[in-house]
């Protein structure tokens, strides 16, 4: 082996940054409070907006009285549907003949729907005026119950459109025979109640006409800058080059900021039409009412299985409540059900599946994306089924998982819904998690403790996580883009169309580029969030930024590396393949003293251009786009939760939590672990705490964070995390991982409670499971025994 080749391979095997626990480039500004989020934006002469929102879930608007509001000091202008005739129409709504007006016209269809926008000198003044607007309503009967609303009962939400806004059916060939022939069957109804992402930064928008260019500039807290630009341009009737979207620091997103909302149109329209610089930031109550809700699903499941625990067939009728409109630009109810139906068999070789999907309009808030979307629901159903089979047959839940889990030799594996799984560490992750937990010993302890009235439960959740999907909520395009520019002084500027909200892309993308170019991490600046500087991209969502954005970073890095090698080989009079990049220098392999620094190369490329090789373009800039060949890559892993349920109070305490995660090649384990820990905490909220409750009139009764409970530090357990790495076939071998921890954890937490309460014959079938449900179940069980 030549020295050069040896050096190359050594380099390739041991990148300096990729795979290392690198601390983040973003942190200094965030830790010192120097960063700027949306509400920190101040535009000279800026006005603020507050909305009058519907207090009814279903009513006709008879009259809007604005006189008192108009007379309120500080009020500049008031908009109703007449003054702001904009609307959003998602593909799903338009197919049903429905569009959502930015401000409700004649009918209100959910509590919180915006009706009037008050533009005033301060938010205080705007809210003063909001209180003085009076709206006369004629009540309509609210449509709230999923099963009835699908039958157009008590009435249609949109007069001319049936409530059933989506329906589909799927069945594997030979399903009925296989189902009927099975020796054992069980039925269950699983339900997940409404939850939402609750990023700590509420959503909002600011807009102004840029005095220099005359273009509309929008500041938005959003996951997809280019997606928002396209959608807003269409809705406002302007060209995309007349609109600049700037996304400042985003304080969490979790899917809810992948959507565009009616208020955004009002704010932008006010700037465009009335030439007013304006800002609107939602308050927390507005968020809980009108940020897209999620997880409003019912699964009626029938399962056929054998005496050894082998599951042969699952039949599932999936229903979801879309709310009054499809969220824009995509419908959460359809996303949750359709995609759940494709991964219902999880990591198991269940050969037969039959699914029916029905989604309905209702007088509730539109259903949209929350981290994991379909995954947390599908996992809850799938892992709930496995544990029910185990309990029915008096088998250990681990044994049922071992009997059904896809063996390594079957990859690539096509599941019963036709989804093609790439290779993973399915069995290995389960065994590793059991070993970390010391499972057999814990089972023995559980038995002893039960005899003393202590109810410990072990909840296992083996999961698949479809990532980097060609089309996911934020990723309306199946690729990502990266530009890299080496500046005249040799420093590196990269730009992406991603829309990070805390995932650390400025660090991870820089790690990949630094390793390609052989430069120091600190010499790279990563830009994003400005449609004027970022290349067109799909944005962040659906666990796509690492695998697809990272792929674009690698491709762009390689293209730039090739340019530097070409230039250096010319100047060094060496063969191009002998030129290596390391420590900010290009040198001849094996002769590091024969070198040019990147800075010197940049100077030649921009200034001393007569020294450039023939045909070498002046400057050092590349743009690369990466579209994975596979339409999806599957991450996998196993979570196990250990809980204690207090049979006196119904309270749940998490005693231990183990995660084995496989997201392919790791870019930064520190960041991956942060994502996992945050997702498990959200999973705990999903399983035990969080619920957007509606009363029988369609009023949301959980309108503060004192009612909608988020997990706090004393509730979230310390987690033990191990990584397995089964590379994908895509660029870099990366798989996505932003959602897997929230996909897996609600099922683990739910199963742990079911396991703890086995003596009371209780299994969790609805999330969240709360102390009152647990106490009721224990009472029922004691009554039946007595």
């Amino acid at each position, binding site marked *: 082996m030549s020295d050069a080749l040896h050096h190359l391979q050594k380099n390739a095997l041991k990148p300096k940054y990729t795979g290392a626990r690198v601390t983040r480039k973003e942190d200094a500004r965030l830790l010192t409070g120097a960063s700027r989020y949306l509400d920190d934006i101040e535009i000279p002469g800026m006005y603020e907006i507050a909305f009058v929102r519907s207090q009814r879930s279903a009513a006709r608007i008879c009259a809007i009285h604005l006189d008192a509001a108009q007379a309120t000091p500080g009020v500049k202008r008031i908009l109703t549907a007449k003054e702001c005739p904009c609307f959003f129409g998602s593909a799903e709504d338009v197919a049903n003949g429905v569009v959502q007006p930015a401000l409700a016209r004649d009918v209100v269809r959910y509590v919180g729907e915006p009706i009037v926008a008050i533009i005033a*000198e301060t938010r*205080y003044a705007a809210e003063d005026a909001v209180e003085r607007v009076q709206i006369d309503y004629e009540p309509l009967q609210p449509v709230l119950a999923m099963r009835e609303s699908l039958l157009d009962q008590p009435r249609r939400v949109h007069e001319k459109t049936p409530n059933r806004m989506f329906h589909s059916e799927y069945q594997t060939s030979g399903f009925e025979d296989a189902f009927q022939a099975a020796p054992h069957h069980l039925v269950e109804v699983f339900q997940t109640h409404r939850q939402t992402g609750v990023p700590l930064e509420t959503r909002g928008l600011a807009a102004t006409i840029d005095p220099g260019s005359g273009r509309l500039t929008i500041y938005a807290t959003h996951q997809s800058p280019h997606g928002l630009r396209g959608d807003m341009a269409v809705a406002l009737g302007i060209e995309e080059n007349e609109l600049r979207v700037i996304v400042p620091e985003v304080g969490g997103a979790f899917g809810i900021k992948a959507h565009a909302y009616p208020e955004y149109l009002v704010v932008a329209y006010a700037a465009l039409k009335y030439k007013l610089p304006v800002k609107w930031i939602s308050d927390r109550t507005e968020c809980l009412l009108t940020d897209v809700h999620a997880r409003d699903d019912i699964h009626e499941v029938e399962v056929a299985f054998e005496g050894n625990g082998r599951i042969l067939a699952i039949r599932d009728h999936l229903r979801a409540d879309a709310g009054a409109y499809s969220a824009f630009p995509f419908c959460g109810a359809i996303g949750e059900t359709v995609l759940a139906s494709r991964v219902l068999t999880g990591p198991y070789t269940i050969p037969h599946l039959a699914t029916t999907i029905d989604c309905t309009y209702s007088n509730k808030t539109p259903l949209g994306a929350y981290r994991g979307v379909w995954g947390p629901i599908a996992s809850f159903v799938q892992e709930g089924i496995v544990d029910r089979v185990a309990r029915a047959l008096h088998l250990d839940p681990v044994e049922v998982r071992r009997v059904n889990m896809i063996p390594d030799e079957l990859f690539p594996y096509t599941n019963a819904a036709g989804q093609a799984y790439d290779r993973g560490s399915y069995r290995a992750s389960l065994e590793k998690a059991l070993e970390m937990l010391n499972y057999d010993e814990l089972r023995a302890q559980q038995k002893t403790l039960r005899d003393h009235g202590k109810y410990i439960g072990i909840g296992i959740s083996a999961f698949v996580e479809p990532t980097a999907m060609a089309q996911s909520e934020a990723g309306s395009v199946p690729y990502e883009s990266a530009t890299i520019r080496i500046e005249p002084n040799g420093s590196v500027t990269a730009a992406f169309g991603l829309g990070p909200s805390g995932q650390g892309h400025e660090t991870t993308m820089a790690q990949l580029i630094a390793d390609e170019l052989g430069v120091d991490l600190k010499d790279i600046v990563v830009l994003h969030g400005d449609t004027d500087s970022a290349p067109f991209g799909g944005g962040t969502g659906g666990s796509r930024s690492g695998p697809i954005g990272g792929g674009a970073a690698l491709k762009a890095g390689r293209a730039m590396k090739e340019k530097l090698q070409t230039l250096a080989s010319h100047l060094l009079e060496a063969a191009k393949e002998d030129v290596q990049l390391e420590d900010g220098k290009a040198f001849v392999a094996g002769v590091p003293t024969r070198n040019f620094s990147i800075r010197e190369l940049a100077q030649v490329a921009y200034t001393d251009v007569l020294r450039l090789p023939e045909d070498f373009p002046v400057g050092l800039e590349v743009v690369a786009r990466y579209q994975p060949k596979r339409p999806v890559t599957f991450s996998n892993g196993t979570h196990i939760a250990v809980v204690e349920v207090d049979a006196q109070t119904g309270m749940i305490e998490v005693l231990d939590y183990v995660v084995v995660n496989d997201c392919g090649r790791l870019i930064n384990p520190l960041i991956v672990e*942060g994502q996992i820990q945050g997702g498990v905490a959200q999973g705990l909220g999903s399983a035990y705490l969080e619920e957007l409750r509606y009363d029988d009139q369609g009023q949301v009764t959980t309108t503060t964070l004192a009612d909608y409970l988020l997990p706090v530090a004393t509730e979230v357990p310390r987690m033990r995390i191990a990584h397995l790495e089964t590379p994908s076939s895509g660029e870099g071998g990366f798989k996505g991982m932003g959602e897997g921890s929230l996909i897996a954890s609600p099922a683990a937490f739910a199963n742990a409670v079911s396991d703890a309460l086995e003596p009371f014959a209780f299994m969790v079938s609805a999330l969240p499971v709360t102390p009152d449900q647990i106490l009721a179940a224990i009472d029922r069980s004691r009554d039946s025994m007595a």
Partner: protein
Amino acid sequence: MKTIQATQSITLNINGQTHSLDVEPRFLLSDVLRHKLGLTGTHVGCEHGVCGACTVLVDGKPERSCLVFAIQAEGSSVETIEGLSADGMTRLQRAFQEHHALQCGFCTPAFLLTATALLKQTKDPTEQDIREAISGNICRCTGYQFIVDAILAAAKGEEA
């Protein structure tokens, strides 16, 4: 931040500096810090006093600035994240970076101020002490584990 209603003149001591201001009596301390004084490192997450994102130190104690009128803060000494960072990052801030104790960063200034108060009061806190001290601050990104690790490390004087 403009004023619309009748105002009152107040003097606030923020991060060791004295500010004379005209404010409406109803203005929240959080709004005055952010929009009158430009101290936007204090973040507003719920305005109900639940999430803790707007926490500042009032006379050294963590307080929710969304539950305090600015006029009530007269005569107190208020410290914000900008004050904590006046001489560069503290050991606690460096520990947060080293342990990846932040993601989106929105709740972070409030956690830093809460933990600063804890470490002044309790030199050698246990993990449980820390979890209880920060249980009034919500973080939606991290799951708290790395925040706890960072505070533990800073308490032990481990340098990043």
